[in-house]
């Protein structure tokens, strides 16, 4: 048995037992604490992520929702250390994944974790696949080189020429494709990304994420570039898969409708801060933060029309408002709001909000 294979087998065993052990406890799998990321620009320092706190528990789907430019994708990318530093600068914060700080671990360890325990489905299916390789090439390459670094020529030959390994990995890839209900997966494997439809490409990307058995899935708006019927299918497949494998998921989206379909809990982000957290139905039924209220009101509804939106726009990160970052747009503004930043308070079990209206 070759090393890669053995490792795949072991890690799948490990994750199975781990899931059954943890699912009842629902302890935290990923914990982001006080994450601050600033960007240096010619005009000064942009304080884009300014103290993000959130927790993804074992076996739950947390949706991180917010509008364009609120820093939701950036938070996820920063955790996986795929943002360019500089211009970005991680000022403070921790991203604890099973107790290990992803922002501190060394490169080898990070590669190992990213390779095996955290999978990410990127946003845009049109650009995430390499156009000059077939789907098969891309999926196999990922599996073959997982966890390998500084490979000598000898090892390289051994791995690429190993027909038996290739065959087994191909089988595995086909299995994953089949489980995502891709029609005739053998043909799809031989295709170039350009020959596939958007929905198909997105499914290939999801399949690629599931090649390993991740503990945590980070999905950055999969399906937003697709038609609603296709998007709906993708989300159903994803949901199905998540519940079957009891997977923890961080799902990033700006679409609250999708969020409602998928999430257990939802965290609303505004201008680099998480401002409200709660169970999905609670947040939709009774939004607390004025921003969440406005956001839910502006969604077109099947019954009861469409709201009037929120006045103003997302603040300039170079010179963000003092105190609460939402105060210039807020209809419940109080004198204290532009002086003191509100703290996150727990107003009910598992229900957090960061607003002066709910403090003391």
């Amino acid at each position, binding site marked *: 048995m070759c090393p890669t294979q053995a490792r795949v087998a072991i890690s799948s065993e490990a994750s199975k037992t781990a899931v059954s052990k943890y699912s009842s406890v629902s302890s935290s799998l990923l914990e982001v604490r006080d994450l601050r990321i600033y960007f240096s620009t010619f005009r000064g320092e942009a304080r884009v992520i300014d103290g993000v706190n959130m927790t993804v528990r074992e076996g739950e789907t947390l949706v991180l929702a917010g*509008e*364009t430019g609120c820093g939701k994708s950036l938070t996820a990318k920063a955790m996986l250390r795929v943002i360019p530093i500089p211009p970005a600068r991680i000022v403070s914060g921790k991203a604890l994944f099973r107790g290990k700080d992803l922002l501190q671990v060394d490169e080898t360890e990070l590669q190992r974790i990213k390779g095996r325990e955290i999978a990410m489905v990127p946003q845009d299916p049109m650009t995430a696949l390499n156009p000059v390789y077939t789907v098969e090439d891309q999926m196999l390459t990922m599996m073959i080189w997982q966890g390998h670094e500084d490979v000598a020529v000898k090892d390289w030959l051994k791995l690429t020429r190993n027909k038996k390994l290739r065959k087994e990995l191909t089988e595995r890839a086909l299995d994953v494709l089949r489980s995502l*209900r891709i*029609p005739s997966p053998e043909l799809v494997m031989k295709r170039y990304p350009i020959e596939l*439809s958007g*929905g*198909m490409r997105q499914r290939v990307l999801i399949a690629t994420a599931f090649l390993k058995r991740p503990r945590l899935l980070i999905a950055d708006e999969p399906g937003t570039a697709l*038609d*609603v*019927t*296709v*998007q*709906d*299918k993708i989300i*159903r497949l994803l949901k199905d898969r998540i519940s079957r494998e009891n997977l923890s998921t961080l799902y990033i989206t*700006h*679409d*609250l*409708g*999708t969020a*409602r*379909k998928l999430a257990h809990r939802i965290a609303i982000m505004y201008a680099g801060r998480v401002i409200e957290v709660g169970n999905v*139905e609670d947040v*939709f*039924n009774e939004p607390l933060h004025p921003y969440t209220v*406005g*956001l*839910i*009101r*502006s*969604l*077109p*509804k*099947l*019954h*009861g*029309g*469409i*709201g*009037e*939106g*929120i*006045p103003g*726009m997302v603040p300039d990160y170079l010179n963000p408002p003092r105190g609460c970052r939402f105060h210039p747009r807020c209809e419940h503004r109080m004198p204290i709001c532009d002086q003191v930043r509100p703290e996150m308070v727990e107003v009910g079990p598992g229900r957090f909000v960061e607003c002066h209206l709910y403090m003391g």
Partner: protein
Amino acid sequence: MNTEVIRVNDLRKYFPLYGGILRKRVGEIKAVDGVTFSIGAGETCALVGESGSGKTTVGKTIVRIYDPTGGTVYFEGRDVTNLSQDELMSVRRKMQMVFQDPTSSLNPRKRVRDIVTAPLEVHRVGSNSERLARAAELLEIVQLSREYLHRYPYGLSGGEKQRVALARALALDPCLLVLDEPTSALDVSVQAKTIALLGELQKKLSLTYLFISHNLVLVKNIAATVLVMYFGKIIESAPTQELFRCPSHPYTMTLLSSMPVVDTEVELPASGELENIVEAGIDLANPPVGCRFYPRCAFREELCQEAYPKLREIRKEHFVSCHFAEQMLT
């Protein structure tokens, strides 16, 4: 309310397909294949469908960005299908289009005032100073402050850019606006504001809208009638209330059930049963004889593959192109 602003009769638009070494014309893509509808003055009509269904092509053919392959377009009772460029000029003053992506529909090298006054220049309306005054007035109409006149598009947010595009479309006092997914590039809170603005403008300037969109829930809130397109054909059209109360084409039902809905009082439908899982587009160069939704339809029968279901009226003003529309409701 009863006067028709626009009537489209059996509109067709085929795009040529070239192939072989000599790049000879080998066929055509039938992007729009026989579309008929009309919109009354001051009404909003929504054209819904997924990408590739030809909804944008319908919009562009109506304002004559594309020349139609067949069929007729009547604008205010006049046949405008085969007008020459000169004659078109006068008609175009009355129908304008707002495009989907405000970033690419505004020239990045021009200031807002030049963008907004461009239509006036093309149509030789007013003097320079009059045009500038008109531009300021237009910005006020779309609720932007006057200082935006001297700014470039890159300094504007998506919502503001779309307002500038809207101001440009309104410059010549049109009566028909073709809105091609005007809010799909915007955030929800900005979308809500833009929709509110469009509603206000419609009342104030008595505009008629053809609203092209893929978002059924949004459409429910603004349109009087809805046309659902699927691969070049209208497969269902009805007054909005009627369509949402009893959708009668399997595709419309699929579309409705896959909408992400946020109303908490609405039960989330189990959309899985409505559709076969195959993801099949159809070849628009050689469209099938039968129903175009056949490969995806969960209720298909043999008849559907053999004969194209004609668009027929199953209830008052409710047209469906499905052999079994009556059975769908049960």
